[in-house]
């Protein structure tokens, strides 16, 4: 499987970009020990014009490069944690709905549809506004708006797998329903969940950026969305302030999408778009 993944050029590029972003985020304190908020120079320094400030400074004289690197932490953290939380809500709900059927299914699906009918972004804004913007509440809000597709996917997969003969065999072996669900059915639904999760991280990063852009980010955390939001008033005189964080978001989301696609091809070789049968 790893060999199949590695033979996909796009996926390998995605992994390299993502590793680079992670490395920067992890070493942020070493590279820029003064933090992203420190004013280091005159404001509006053009990139590549001053030694030590390759990406220039912003409206208050803060180092854009420091902001980018520290912002990577927030973006990645929010992306990963909110995806995990979404999985923790969506997987059990979808599994129970798909496996037990009947009223459990009806109830869980109506509940899911309730969340799906409200536009994602609007709901996230409302949640963050109610909960006060902190990293925790933003993560939670993103998780709450992104679990419904997970639940639906898991439900469909579980419904397909539970009709397999080996599940019948497990019933005949006298295993309890819970053990059949956790031991026989769920492990066989992981591949599409993994693929979906990698794409969800990308969506979560975009959502977080959008929230910060609107000024609903955590005021104590530097993030890419916040940087673009703060720079939008001066976009014509200082293009680099919104350009570099934009490129950072683009690259990270692209990397995650490439990885997700690579995983999808590697885990489902029969559905591979390349048709190398």
């Amino acid at each position, binding site marked *: 499987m790893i060999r199949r993944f590695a033979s996909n050029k796009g996926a390998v590029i995605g992994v390299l970009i993502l590793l680079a972003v992670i490395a920067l985020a992890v070493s942020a304190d070493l590279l820029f020990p003064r933090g992203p908020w420190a004013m280091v120079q005159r404001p509006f320094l053009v990139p590549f014009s001053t030694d030590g400030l390759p990406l220039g400074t912003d409206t208050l004289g803060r180092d854009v490069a420091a902001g980018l690197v520290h912002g990577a932490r927030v973006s990645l953290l929010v992306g990963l944690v909110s995806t995990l939380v979404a999985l923790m809500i969506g997987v059990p709900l979808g599994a129970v709905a798909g496996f037990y059927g009947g009223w459990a299914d009806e109830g869980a699906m109506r509940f899911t549809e309730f969340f799906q009918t409200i536009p994602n972004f609007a709901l996230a804004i409302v949640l963050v506004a109610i909960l006060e913007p902190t990293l925790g509440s933003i993560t939670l809000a993103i998780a709450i708006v992104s679990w419904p597709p997970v639940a639906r996917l898991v439900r469909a997969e579980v419904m397909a797998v539970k009709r397999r003969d080996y599940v019948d065999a497990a019933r005949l072996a006298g295993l309890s329903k819970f*053990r059949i669900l956790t031991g026989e059915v769920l492990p066989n639904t992981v591949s599409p969940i993994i693929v979906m999760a990698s794409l969800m991280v990308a969506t979560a990063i975009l959502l977080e950026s959008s929230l910060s852009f609107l000024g609903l980010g955590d005021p104590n955390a530097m993030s890419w969305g916040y940087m673009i939001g703060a720079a939008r008033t001066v976009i014509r005189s200082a293009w680099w302030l919104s350009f570099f964080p934009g490129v950072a978001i683009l690259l990270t989301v692209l990397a995650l999408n490439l990885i997700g696609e690579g995983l999808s091809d590697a885990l489902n070789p029969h559905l591979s778009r390349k048709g190398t*049968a």
Partner: protein
Amino acid sequence: MRPVLTIEDLSIALPAGADRPHAVSGMSMTIGEGEILCVVGESGSGKSMTANALMGLLPPGVTVAGGRAVFDGRDVLALPETQRRALRGRQIAMIFQEPMTALNPLMRIGEQISEVFAAHGMYGPTERERRTLALVTEVGLPDPAKIMRAYPFQLSGGQRQRAMIAMALALEPELLIADEPTTALDVTTQAQILDLILDLRRRRGMGVMFITHDFGVVAEIADKVIVMEKGIAVEQGSAAEVLDTPQHPYTSRLLDAIPTGRLPEARSLEPAPVLELKGLRKVYRTGGGLFRPPREVRAVDDVSLTIGRGEVLGLVGESGSGKSTLGRTVVRLVTPDAGQVLVGGTDLAALSEEELRKSRGKVQMVFQDPYASLNPRHRILRALTAGPVAMGRPRAAAEAKARELLEIVGLGPEAAERFPHEFSGGQRQRIGIARALAMEPELIVADEAVSALDVSIQAQVLDLLRDLRARLGLSILFITHDLRVAAQLCDRIAVMQTGRLVEMGAVHDIFLAPRDPYTRALLAAVPGADWAAENRMAGNAEGARP
């Protein structure tokens, strides 16, 4: 006889990394006008690849490595794609195994047939329609005008295959390639389709290349036979020669492996019943709305039967007869609407969920599809011990027992540490049997347990079941659509039709003196029945000699 197709030294290369370099190597054959050539072999023998190469339908990565296939004075393998397309359908036509997937589900039957004319730019719309109607009538579809307006899902399997044949015949091809066209059909339908092909051959004088794995079918229709093993044509000759005096050991092995209907000796059995079914019913209701009554299918309709200790009861019927539902009701994967399933005095049908879980061990099942019946993520040991451990047996004892069982079913204890994908279909079926035995059941329900296997593998698994029956005194409910297989293993046979038990009796009685007309029809439809009967005579005569 004028040859229609001559293949000389055909080789088809497989992509690097396959289990052998060539799918087919050095194959030569000739099909004459009005001749039926059967290409016989087990799965993976390269028989379908030959047909696909002729039609230019080889999967990506597979290429023709050498040889010629002369049709109508030209080498079809060397033709450019445009000329090949003109040839396909017009001069060489093909029918496939699964008529449901070979037909477009969104097009009416009439449209699909007349599309063949359109694709080759022939005739105007009214003439197309007239010819389509004539074809539909010729292949014996009932009520042709109505069938032409029907969609594929409204037709039965046999009717769909007839529609496929009508499409293939549309442009009066000189050669028809039939790739296992009857494998997915019931025996009675199969017999009708074989008759149709024989009839069309006679009327139109076309050559037929018939690909099959079933020597019964070969005996029924072949003029000439080619036997393929691992891509090499090991034997060819006239049907009579190959069937009666096979030269190559592989051919003899295949012929020996066919369940010929040679009847086993009747055994004396203990009268104590292991399983009693009393008035069992199961009705499936589908559809229905506020104003429409639901459609009811009586899958199992008032069935009563008993299986004695150590007895093998064959449950025979065609698809839709309710035999699988009955089997699943016995193990209670399906809960019956009425009736009792008595196993050792307990009524399984009446147990609550929790009680049922504790008595699960009493009846076990061996499934049809060896690839779907084992969890791909669990090692064999886990598959074999999960049940006994859940029943409260200590893990160490269960593991020791599992290894012992793997030995008994002929795999060896080291199989325990491996994953299902490392095994072949036949081996997986052995694991399935071991898994059923691990629960120490009183009865095993085998639902089409050998139907998905090649004949030689099928024979081995049947041998294993026979051996287990003798060694462990197993009682088995053996569900199958194939009377020949049932005859090999069973003591008694029960015949099911549309949910009802139409006849039940000892194997000898069912085969030699069937009472019910449906049983008679089933027996008559078994491919190669006459040939098998001769064999049976010969076999019995040999047996009678001291």
